[in-house]
């Protein structure tokens, strides 16, 4: 201190020395800090200096000082990701080895696959199918038991891998319903009649004259893919028209639009975009959503990918 008071004043009440500051008659006592507190304070200063040397601390114009430990949050993240992948290695290796249809539904491996698939689904699939996989108009609900291309593990796996109507993937699913109205195959009256018929077989309307006419039109134009009684065919990706589940809607206007202009829904082929294990996990997750079928319930899954190709050539 520069100003050293000759006569140090002592507070009578406490016996403590005054600091020498006074405001309106109030004086400050020289009450020192406890030593343990000071030591703690000094220790934090030393720690801070050490920290600044060891870790990135001082901001420069476009980056911060690196620190002698060469630590960075980015490097830490990469290490964590690598560690997580190493931890999952046993699961991923086993999943890579086992064919999808051989997966035991009750096994821990299946549970791991479903959990992994749920995570992958949230990244890649929710944009179209929704976070709960309930879909929306034009995007199938994956929870229900209606499957255009089959609902067992291998059929789902195939659909995810090759997508729907993906140019560049020779094995892609390819259903091509003609645009009956636009291409002049049916007149607008005929379309109204066939719509009446479809609404009758799906229990949305009472039988009518129009529906009777529509039945003949249906048999001549639609039964080849949708089946004689309208229950659809997974070989062609043709939906069942008799149940209450509609991808685009079952009201007159929507059905009219569908028959007139056809629908050309698409899905990316994930082969090449995602690694094979992730695709397997996605298949397991989608299968677990509630509509998954046992392999035995479905026709030969191998034939279904070929059939649409035939359908395509037929249509063109």
């Amino acid at each position, binding site marked *: 201190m520069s100003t050293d008071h000759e006569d140090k004043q002592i507070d009578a009440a406490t016996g*403590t*020395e005054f600091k020498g500051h006074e405001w309106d008659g109030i004086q400050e006592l*020289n*009450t020192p800090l406890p*030593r343990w507190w000071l030591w703690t304070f000094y220790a934090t200063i030393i720690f801070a200096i050490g920290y600044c040397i060891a870790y990135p601390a001082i901001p420069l114009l476009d980056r911060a000082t690196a620190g002698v430990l060469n630590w960075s949050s980015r490097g830490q993240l990469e290490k964590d990701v690598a560690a997580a992948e190493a931890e999952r290695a046993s699961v991923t290796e086993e999943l890579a080895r086992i064919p999808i249809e051989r997966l035991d539904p009750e096994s821990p491996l299946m549970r791991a696959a479903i959990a992994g698939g749920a995570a992958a689904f949230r990244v890649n699939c929710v944009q179209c199918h929704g976070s709960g996989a309930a879909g929306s108009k034009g995007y199938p609900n994956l*929870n229900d038991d209606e499957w255009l291309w089959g609902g067992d593990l291998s059929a789902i796996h195939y659909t995810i891998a090759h997508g729907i109507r993906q140019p560049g993937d020779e094995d892609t699913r390819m259903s091509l319903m003609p645009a009956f109205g636009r291409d002049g195959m049916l007149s607008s009256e005929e379309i109204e009649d066939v719509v009446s018929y479809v609404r009758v077989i799906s229990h949305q309307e009472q039988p009518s004259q129009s529906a009777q006419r529509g039945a003949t039109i249906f048999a001549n134009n639609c039964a080849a893919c949708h089946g004689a009684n309208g229950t659809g065919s997974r070989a062609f990706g043709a939906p069942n028209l008799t149940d*209450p589940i509609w991808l685009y809607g079952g009201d007159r206007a929507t059905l009219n639009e569908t028959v007139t202009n056809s629908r050309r829904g698409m899905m990316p082929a994930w082969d090449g975009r995602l690694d094979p294990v992730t695709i397997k996990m996605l298949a397991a997750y989608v299968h677990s959503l509630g509509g*998954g079928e046992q392999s035995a319930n479905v026709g030969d899954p191998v034939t279904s990918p070929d059939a649409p190709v035939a359908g395509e050539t037929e249509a063109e």
Partner: protein
Amino acid sequence: MSTHSDRTGKAQKGGGLYARRADIFPRAVDGFYRRLKWAIMGVTLAIYYITPWLRWDRGPYAPDQAVLVDLANRRFYFFSIEIWPHEFYYVAGLLVMAGVGLFLLTSTVGRAWCGYACPQTVWTDLYLHIERFIDGDRNAQLRLKKAPLGPKKIFKRVTKHAAFLIVAVLTGGAWVFYFADAPTLARDLVAGDAATVAYLTIGVLTFTTYWLGGWMREQVCIYMCPWPRIQSAMLDERSLIVTYKDWRGEPRSRGTKRQSDDPVGDCIDCNACVAVCPTGIDIREGPQIGCITCALCIDACDEMMSKVDRPRGLIDYATLEDCDAERKGAAPVPVRRTIFRSRTFLYFGLWAAVGLGMLFMLGQRTRLDLSVGQERNPLYVQLSGGEVRNAYTVKIRNMETRPRPVRVSIEGLPGAVMWDSLGSDDSAAAALEIEVGPDQVERRRIYVRAPRQGEAPAEFRFRLTSLDGMPAEDIDSVRFDRPGEN
């Protein structure tokens, strides 16, 4: 406060940045309160060291340690009571009881916690005894401090701190046994196989015990602990505190002065009360924050009063109200009148109410518990057969330490069937049978399918029934959603 200035005044004269701690060498003393302190110290230390070693048979699926805080498995065992994380309000209740209990204790017998049961007091007391055993009593300690550093002093200092450290290690070592099976952990600790966190905990507690008990001592009470400040605010004029009866003692005088004709008080100014004080205060200066009401000055003063043939109790437990009355010449008030008064009854009632409430809740709680949450994404699924499917997350909590077979069934939803999401709907039935592991929560995703009837959501119930002959049941109401008009 005067204590502060007396204790630190000398060091402050220099105006330095910190105040050096003035060493305190409390003299040994004997008397009623000293013996009380011995007893309480014995009991509290015994509770601390022995508790984790008590066994309690809970059957094959649960640990056999009477008191165990199983953090890894998130269970808290206390004799016959087992607490799950969702029942943590019992711990909150215990904390409320501890809080109200301290209010009760403080308003009746003053800072008895500080003086007798506080761990800082207990361990500091233990360390003071070790110090006296090695260095000798107050005068020997003072001499040793002044003595130059020779072989004898070095030997005594090393022995003392080694003894302090042993006590500290044992203190830290005992703590970890509350968190794991004590005999296993003891073996692992010795073999070097125990978890790092165990050694780390022992290390931290060893350091804090040695530092706080061996070095900081009364500074913890005066500078670090917030409790004396709270407690001072809770005392009232009818709480017991250690008091010097100045109207009887003053003016104090000693030796030949007492022979003069001037009127003198009973205090012979022998400073025994100051010499025995573990926090180094002079009780004759009145109530102060440094006083932990350990009453050792009462023992020291009573001993002196007997020697000079004066009535005991010059320093005594008394209330401020009684002090005022006595000063005016009234007779001393019996302690029971101080203890039993409306404020303490109120605190006791509050304390007992919380305790009884918790006991009642403990008696009422179920050990089998069902909770069902409806899947909301999507709320319902339209099936091709015209039926509707909803999904639910069913959680079954088996809090018994044995496996329990249970049945989950549906009530109030006509035509409904359910199945486990891991199986297929081929196994759909009106009820499911599940075996829940001991002390576990079974979480299943369950699908419920029902015919579509109307569009309004229907209320229905899941019922959980125990199948092991011990009747236990739980019901949870949920909603069944159906496609509405869009």
